[in-house]
């Protein structure tokens, strides 16, 4: 519960969704209460700020500092900074949206050639290439303390979500100040409190800075040099600055035995006999490091070269022996083993990566070969089937023609009504059986009524095309086939 002296407007402030975003979701009432208590305790003005503004101030593109000089053509002629959400006018000039809008408020003409401009008609989107160029500009984070440099399209994300130095609204509802995100706690850090050393009134958020650079009070004597040092800086003073503390010469690791008060040691270091040796040693260790790294690199490069050589050899080998099988792989594994034992993990990984890449290449190649083999096999199988189909088609065609011929003959005979038919009419069943082999025969109105002339059908079936077509000519036979089916 809030204390009795909590003003009503503090409580009503709680309803403001904008300000509530900062309060821990699980303990909103508590934060609110502490804030209110503190306000009551300290002498801050009792009226709550009516407008606390957004949680994070929008990124101001006009204060951005770019890592490289921005090309003049990308600068807005009004604000002289790189365009932000540019707009191109009908007269062909480009401005930041905010700049052109402000200029038009004063004078409804183009800020460059003063041609009249109507927002609704004369504003156009600039070409994408301009936006892309702007997106690629390298820009420094505008937050004090942050040294991030990124391309401009990513800056907003960095500023709004990731940067630790972005100024956000103070968690206290009574306070309209801002605080860097990294220092953000659940409490207001802006109330002034006297510094425990100098008594100066300092906001909590600035205390660290104050201690390190500003604070002048409450000095205590250094036990070595008798100097008056600000109390909380004493330790640092003894460690790093005090001229009276005992220190070793900086060339101690090399063998200099001098150990004395700092100011003497500093004097001694000016002409320490070990200095020359020390420098040499230092240079030598640096050289050693350099050599080691170079050796590593050489090893890695050699391994690479070997790998490449192996791969080439194996590839040429495989050209002869179609299924590459496991031979190459075993070899690779052996190489890898030796590599693992002999060189750095980096080159090992590199080599391993190369092997895998190689293996993938091999597999791809195998797959392609298999594919090719498969399709050629299918083609081979298909070819005779195709031929057979064509032959069959031609046979059907021939038979069709025969049937038509026969039917014509029958009609002719019927019309002439010759006696030849009568002699054959007593044996229809004998002629039925060969005919039923050819399903395409047209239906006769009444089979019994048409006597059939006995033709040499058998010979035709057994030796297709021997009499009428040369079956080799596939195209003509297909044509005929079609004719036949039409008949």
């Amino acid at each position, binding site marked *: 519960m809030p204390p009795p002296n909590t003003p009503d407007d503090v409580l009503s402030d709680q309803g403001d969704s904008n300000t509530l975003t900062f309060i821990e979701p699980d303990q909103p009432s508590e934060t609110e209460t502490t804030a209110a208590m503190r306000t009551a305790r300290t002498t801050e003005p009792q009226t709550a700020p009516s407008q606390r503004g957004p949680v994070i101030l929008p990124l*101001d593109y*006009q*204060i951005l500092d770019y890592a490289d000089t921005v090309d003049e053509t990308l600068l807005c*002629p*009004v*604000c*002289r*900074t790189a365009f932000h959400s540019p707009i191109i006018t009908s007269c062909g000039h480009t401005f930041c949206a*905010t*700049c052109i809008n*402000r*200029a038009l*408020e*004063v*004078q409804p003409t183009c*800020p*460059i*050639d*003063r041609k009249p401009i109507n927002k609704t008609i004369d504003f156009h989107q600039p070409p994408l290439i301009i936006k892309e160029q702007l997106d690629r500009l390298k820009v420094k984070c505008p937050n004090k303390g942050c040294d991030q440099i990124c391309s401009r399209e990513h800056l907003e994300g960095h500023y709004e979500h990731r940067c630790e130095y972005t100024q956000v609204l103070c968690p206290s509802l009574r306070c309209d100040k801002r605080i860097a995100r990294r220092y953000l706690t659940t409490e207001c850090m802006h109330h002034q409190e006297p510094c425990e050393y100098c008594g100066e009134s300092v906001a909590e958020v600035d205390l660290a800075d104050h201690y390190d650079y500003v604070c002048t009070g409450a000095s205590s004597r250094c036990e070595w040099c008798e100097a008056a040092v600000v109390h909380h800086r004493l330790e640092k003073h003894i460690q790093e600055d005090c001229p009276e503390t005992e220190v070793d010469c900086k060339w101690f690791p090399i063998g200099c035995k001098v150990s004395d008060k700092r100011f003497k040691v500093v004097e001694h270091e000016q002409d320490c006999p070990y200095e020359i040796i020390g420098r040499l040693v230092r240079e030598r260790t640096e050289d050693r490091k350099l050599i080691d790294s170079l050796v590593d690199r050489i090893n890695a490069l050699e391994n690479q070269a070997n790998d490449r050589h192996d791969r080439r050899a194996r590839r040429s080998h495989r050209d002869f022996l179609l299924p590459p099988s496991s031979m190459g792989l075993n070899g690779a594994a052996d190489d890898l083993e030796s590599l693992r034992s002999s060189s750095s993990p980096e080159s090992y990984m590199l080599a391993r990566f190369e092997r895998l890449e190689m293996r993938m290449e091999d597999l791809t190649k195998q797959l392609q070969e298999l594919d090719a083999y498969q399709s050629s096999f299918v083609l081979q199988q298909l070819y005779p089937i195709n031929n057979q189909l064509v032959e069959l088609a031609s046979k059907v065609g021939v038979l069709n023609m025969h049937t038509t011929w026969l039917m014509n003959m029958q009609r002719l005979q019927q019309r002439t009504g010759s006696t030849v038919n009568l002699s054959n009419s007593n044996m229809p069943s004998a002629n039925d059986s060969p005919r039923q082999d050819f399903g395409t025969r047209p239906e006769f109105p009444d089979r019994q009524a048409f006597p059939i002339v006995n033709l040499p059908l058998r010979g035709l079936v057994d030796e297709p095309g021997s009499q009428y077509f040369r079956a080799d000519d596939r195209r003509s036979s297909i044509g005929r086939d079609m004719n036949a089916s039409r008949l």
Partner: protein
Amino acid sequence: MGTPGNKRLVRELADCHQNPPVGLTISVPDESNLYKWHVIVHGPPNTVYAGGNFGIVVNLPRDYPFRAPVVTFATRIYHPNVTNDNLGNICLSILKAENWKPAIKLVSVLEAVRNLLIEPQPDDPLEARIADEYKNDRKEFEKNARSYVAQYAKGPVKWENAEPTPATAASK
């Protein structure tokens, strides 16, 4: 305040310090007020104004660059386009409200002023008598101009001479 003009002003000032324009010395008398510049125009060589140092006070409106700056001479000068009084109003076409363009940089304005010393424009005068003299009696004009330089424009610039009155300075 975070108006765009302000930031542009900072930028322009920084530019001027990095690449100082020829024949001009730019300073800001009051660091907390960037809206007032003091510029010294060194009389261009081979002109009647050579050897003189002419103080120019630039007063920038709050919504610069959307409105034109007000530029006046603090040093008296004998010139067809500058009023021959303590106000030192300048007739410069780009500074007129109807001609001002936000895209014009302050350096360009100052260079235009300097150019006025090299090439006076008697056809668009503020001082009709001097313009007339410039056109018809060049010798007399040069004599007068030189005497003005000797009288007013030698030594350090006296800024307190001309406290500008923007209302009159803007109009021709």
